[in-house]
């Protein structure tokens, strides 16, 4: 069924009969703080997801195939580079809009959100911030419209939490450079048209460069066997004497702050996105607990169930407030990387706990793909690890408040 290059089409997926009834939860009326346009963007994303993604997401996850047919739809709801200015083909929205879109996507599936996060914050963002004007014009409009898909190569087999130790490097060869090395765990890699790759130059400095599919010696084998983020494609990037033209190197950004600034932007999106998983699980558990009768009454009527539900909505509300405030700071360009780490860490862990409690409320049904809970729970095991692990974010907060580095 799958086409030769392994890229799935709509025909590869079975439509679920379950209707997606999600309509959000807003205990503290945070919606009052959103603009009318924010709400319109959210509704459009939600409506599109319910029509195009919810019906196939369980099957895509079961088959471990990225549903590539959703790419044009992701572009049309503005999920590719929401904050990229109109001059480069983006919609030029604020950071809260970016957060809202990531939350709606992750409410459906973290893998789908990952595809959009990578494209927006890890590919479009560095090109917008660090590339030459020509490169921006060359790549950004196509990335915004989904005609081009990008990926981000930082992690290596032997360098995860410590990317500064990377061994991928390039050497000067006149009008081009020669790139050698390998990246691992790269989201979107198997079908990406281009990769933003971080590698060391002849002076041992970390630099960013755009590697395009079709360049000789560049391959992107898919990694199989994930129990998490199954609806997103993950692969390796292998560089064997790849000739990369010098104009593909970001001219001015040198050192780890290049990739870390991209990660800050993506982590901010995750801080919003993870709340989406929590909301979907809470929504599912709340609905189920009011309908499921045991001992002659709905299980929502038992104190042990209410404790779970009450704590869930409390934690969700706290996370929503944190994300909203962080969005304001981002809009004012005042959010620090440490503040973003705190929100990413807190909200992902919160979501994972809510998945577990929701799964418990559904009893045996909680493990079935009729409900989204197990899928969210498995997905979040990646989300709590990528973009800086749970431990690393804690160390970032620790270093920020004490001034002492505990990484080494």
């Amino acid at each position: 069924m799958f086409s030769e290059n392994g890229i799935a089409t709509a025909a590869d997926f079975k439509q679920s009969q379950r209707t997606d009834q999600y309509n959000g939860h807003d205990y503290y009326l945070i919606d009052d703080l959103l603009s009318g346009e924010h709400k319109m963007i959210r509704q459009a994303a939600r409506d599109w997801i319910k029509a195009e993604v919810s019906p196939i997401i369980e099957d895509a996850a079961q088959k471990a195939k990225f549903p590539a047919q959703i790419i044009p739809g992701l572009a049309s709801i503005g999920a590719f580079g929401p904050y990229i200015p109109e001059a480069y083909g983006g919609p030029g929205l604020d950071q809260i809009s970016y957060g809202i879109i990531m939350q709606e996507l992750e409410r459906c599936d973290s893998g789908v959100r990952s595809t959009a996060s990578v494209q927006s914050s890890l590919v479009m963002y560095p090109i917008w911030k660090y590339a030459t004007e020509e490169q921006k014009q060359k790549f950004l409009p196509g990335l915004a419209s989904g005609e081009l898909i990008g990926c981000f190569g930082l992690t290596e087999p032997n360098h995860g939490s410590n990317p500064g130790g990377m061994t991928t490097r390039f050497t000067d060869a006149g009008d081009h450079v020669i790139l050698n090395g390998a990246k691992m765990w790269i989201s979107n890699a198997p079908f990406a048209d281009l990769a933003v790759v971080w590698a060391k130059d002849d002076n041992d400095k970390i630099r960013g460069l755009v590697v395009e599919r079709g360049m000789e010696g560049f391959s992107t084998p898919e990694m199989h066997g994930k129990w998490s983020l199954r609806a997103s494609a993950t692969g390796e990037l292998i560089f064997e004497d790849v000739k990369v033209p010098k104009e593909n190197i970001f001219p001015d950004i040198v050192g780890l702050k290049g990739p870390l600034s991209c990660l800050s932007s993506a982590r901010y999106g995750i801080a919003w996105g993870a709340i989406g998983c929590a909301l979907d699980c809470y929504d599912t558990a709340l609905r189920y607990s009011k309908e499921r009768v045991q001992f002659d009454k709905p299980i929502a009527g038992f104190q042990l169930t209410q404790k779970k539900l009450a704590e869930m909505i409390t934690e969700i509300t706290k996370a929503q407030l944190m994300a909203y405030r962080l969005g304001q700071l981002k809009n004012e360009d005042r959010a620090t990387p440490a503040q973003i780490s705190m929100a990413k860490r807190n909200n992902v862990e919160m979501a994972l706990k809510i998945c577990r409690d929701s799964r418990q409320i559904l009893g045996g049904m909680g493990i079935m793909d009729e409900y989204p809970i197990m899928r969210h729970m498995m997905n979040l095991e990646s989300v709590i690890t990528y973009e800086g692990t749970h431990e690393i974010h804690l160390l970032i907060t620790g270093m920020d408040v004490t001034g002492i580095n505990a990484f080494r």
Partner: protein
Amino acid sequence: MKYLVCISKVPDTTTKIEFTDNNSKFNESNVQWIINPTDEWYALVRAIELKEANGGTVTVINVGGAENDQVIRKALAIGADNAVRVNADPSDAYFVASQIAAHAKAEGYDLIFTGKETINYNGFVVGGMLAELLDMPYISLAAKLTANGDTYEVTREIEGGEEVLEVSGACVISCQKGMAEQRIPNMRGIMSARTKPLTVVEASAEAPLTEVVSYTSPPARSDVKLVDADNVEELVKLLHEEAKVI
């Protein structure tokens, strides 16, 4: 061709309905508002399709306060070209119809669309009143419309079947399911809605003809009684004595 689409603002279908002021007013606090579904999915989208096929402009009109601008912007995001808001409380159907009629008379539209009914008050009457005030033909509950110049073939649903009508020249059509498919606004549409014209006009001096005295909610549903499948006698007894249906 100039198309006019009448849109109203209604509470989202999941809204908890409560009343205030001695049950004479709907409690609007914390309500999520949407465009009335038949106005949006069928009337507006069909008007946009006709414009896309034959050229022209689509204007949406709403009677209401400034808080309605949000749902009006959504209509612009879906594809209407411009909007008019009559700045007044939409107190009854006659008042609304007369305000729209005043605007439509001045502007001269080729085709006016409404939704079949609003999901809040289920009035069904604005379209008919509007046609009367404008002295135009009115076709209600239209499920299909094809245009041939300024002649329209309109299919209506009637009890147990359908009716096909032909009408020429300016008219008012109320639309229902079948007329078009819901369109989700895309990001380009949302961005262009920011700068599309939304004109606010003051209301003309018409007065409403009716006044709401009170609302009551439907009685709460009583508990379900489960009768064992083998216990037919008990079931018959309950149907006879409690439900009083046999």
